[in-house]
């Protein structure tokens, strides 16, 4: 609860803050709080990813991007009422959606009765890997991880293609 309150405070700070450097630092703090919350939920692998990617890597990349731009947020030209409306409606829809979810850590929830018993029970015997997260990620759901890796590859290729063309244009 403390964590969630702190995260809410940080979110408000991000929205209120006009200095982009401070926003980046607050974003990093938010990611670390998120990682702590994930540790509290026993999702250590995800917490590790959140800490290294969310708090570390994106902060560094945003700071590098900040070097290329000005440090202060520009005042919006119009009052962003339509985006506000869209955000509120989507937020309300998401909250409405959570009502239909099974209660937290309910053992009879659909997600725990489908393939999870097999993963948890047979993973060590079938794959010889004690960490179920690794065996699910790399073996049972190998196709998904291949897709994920391809997504990372495509993102990298896209960034290379975008930024490199700019540089060539400059030379002309």
């Amino acid at each position, binding site marked *: 609860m403390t964590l969630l309150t702190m995260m809410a405070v940080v979110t408000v700070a991000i929205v209120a803050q006009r200095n982009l450097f401070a926003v980046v630092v607050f974003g990093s703090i938010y990611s670390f709080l998120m990682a702590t919350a994930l540790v509290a939920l026993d999702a250590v692998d995800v917490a590790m990813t959140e800490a290294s990617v969310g708090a570390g890597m994106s902060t560094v990349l945003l700071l590098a991007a900040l070097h290329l731009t000005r440090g202060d947020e520009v005042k919006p030209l119009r009052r962003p009422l339509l985006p506000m409306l869209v955000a509120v409606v989507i937020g309300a829809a998401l909250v409405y959606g959570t009502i239909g979810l099974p209660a937290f850590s309910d053992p009879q929830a659909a997600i725990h009765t489908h393939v999870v018993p097999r993963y948890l029970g047979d993973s060590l015997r079938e794959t010889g890997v004690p960490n179920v997260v690794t065996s699910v990620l790399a*073996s049972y759901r*190998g196709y998904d991880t291949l897709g994920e890796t391809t997504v990372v590859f495509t993102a990298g290729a896209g960034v290379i293609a975008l930024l490199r063309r*700019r540089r060539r244009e400059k030379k002309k």
Partner: protein
Amino acid sequence: MTRDLVLRVLGKLLIPFVLLFALYVQFHGDFGPGGGFQAGVIAAAAVIFYAIIFGLPAARRFAPDWLIESMVALGVLVYGGVGVFGVLLGGNFLDYFVLAHNTVHGQERGIFWVEVGVAITVSGVMLKVFYMFAGRQRDRDEE
């Protein structure tokens, strides 16, 4: 490049341990938390740390662009290669059972190489994106 002596000495002291930790996360991912994705990010973070302290040219000497760009593609190729290798040995795509005489050993071997592929691509992409952003800054300064 920063002239701060404390930062430079500490950076030199820390970076080997960060790289070692990346290897630990990579190879201990079967037993504890971690795996290819996290290890790739941590290894890339070590090089980025080096680049921030000693400057981008120094980091480019350590990890040149051609190497990083090939890493981006190589990781996916390693991952796909494991799948194709399984097909060649008579299984389905991404079947690890056929990779060794014992099915469990085959699984372990397949997971190992798949994680290696993920780590290579992830650290390659992270480094490349950082180089791109930091390199633009330098290009603009040179104008």
